[in-house]
């Protein structure tokens, strides 16, 4: 009973953070992992996440726009 409630609470919080398009969340987390990797080299790493936002947000919005009424996000 308690475990079920905790699972439900965790699922609710997860949904609040991940939102309607999980591919955006996955892409941003992957970009952060790449940032952490690149920052250990001599190359600049600040642009990786920015590039991810510049690609993922328009893609997600465009997909939702194409779906129109079918989008729940």
């Amino acid at each position, binding site marked *: 009973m308690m475990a079920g409630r905790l699972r439900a609470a965790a699922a*609710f*919080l997860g949904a*609040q*953070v*991940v*939102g*309607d*398009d999980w591919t*955006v*969340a996955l892409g*941003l*987390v992957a970009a*952060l992992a790449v*940032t*952490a990797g*690149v*920052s*250990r080299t001599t190359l*600049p*790493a*600040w642009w*990786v*996440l*920015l590039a991810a*936002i*510049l690609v*993922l*947000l*328009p893609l*997600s*919005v465009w997909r*939702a*726009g194409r779906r*129109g*009424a079918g*989008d*729940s*996000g």
Partner: protein
Amino acid sequence: MSAGALFLAVFLACTVEAVEATTIVLAAGTARDWRSAGYGAAAALLVLTVAVVALGPALTSIPIGPLRLVIGAALLLLGVQWLRKAVLRAGGVRPLHDETGIYQAKLAAARGAAAHRVATVPDWYGFTLSFQGVLLEGTEVALIVLTFGSNQHAIPLAGAAAGAAILVVAAAALAVRAPLARVPENALKFVVGVMLTGFGAFWSEEGAGAHWPGGDTALLVLLPGIAVLSLLLAYALRRRSHGLVRVAGGAPSTVETG
């Protein structure tokens, strides 16, 4: 990040959620019982306050590097989600939040349910409706208070901003006894989405070990840049929607879900 910017970001985010929560409390109070609706809202606010007070000190004791990575990532994901919704609404893909419509729907549902008393609560349905509404809408605010506040080691200030927004919205709603339909919710959500995305990207990258050119001044380019990108996306969507309307001879249908 200055104390003023922290206060403003939390205040605006909390205003948006407080407007939505107030609509539900007003419906519960009008259709059922004001005392029960008030108890429900107060109980939910107490739960959220306890969560912030309990988790706050634990978060601020974490070293700043890992904290910035985790908190920044959470803010970034939350911010992009807010921004995406605001862009879709501004672009005409999703309808704007209709507080009056939501209020009428909640009112109709609440009037049909049977009443029963539990302990000192005169109407359990009104209590539960109000409690759930405030708790659900308040969870995002609690997340923002904890993330912004812990990152700047200023949870009391973030909490004060949230409290101020709740007081302002509650006072306005009590004065008019109607849903606050005139609050420009989407514009607020747009601004908050830009702030959450910008600060989330800045902090999470620093937590991951990257260094922004120019340090903190990079935010002066990052925040307007995200705002311009979002406005361009909304503009492109709106142009596309108008094109579809011209081709189909009618407006594209949309379904509002939250």
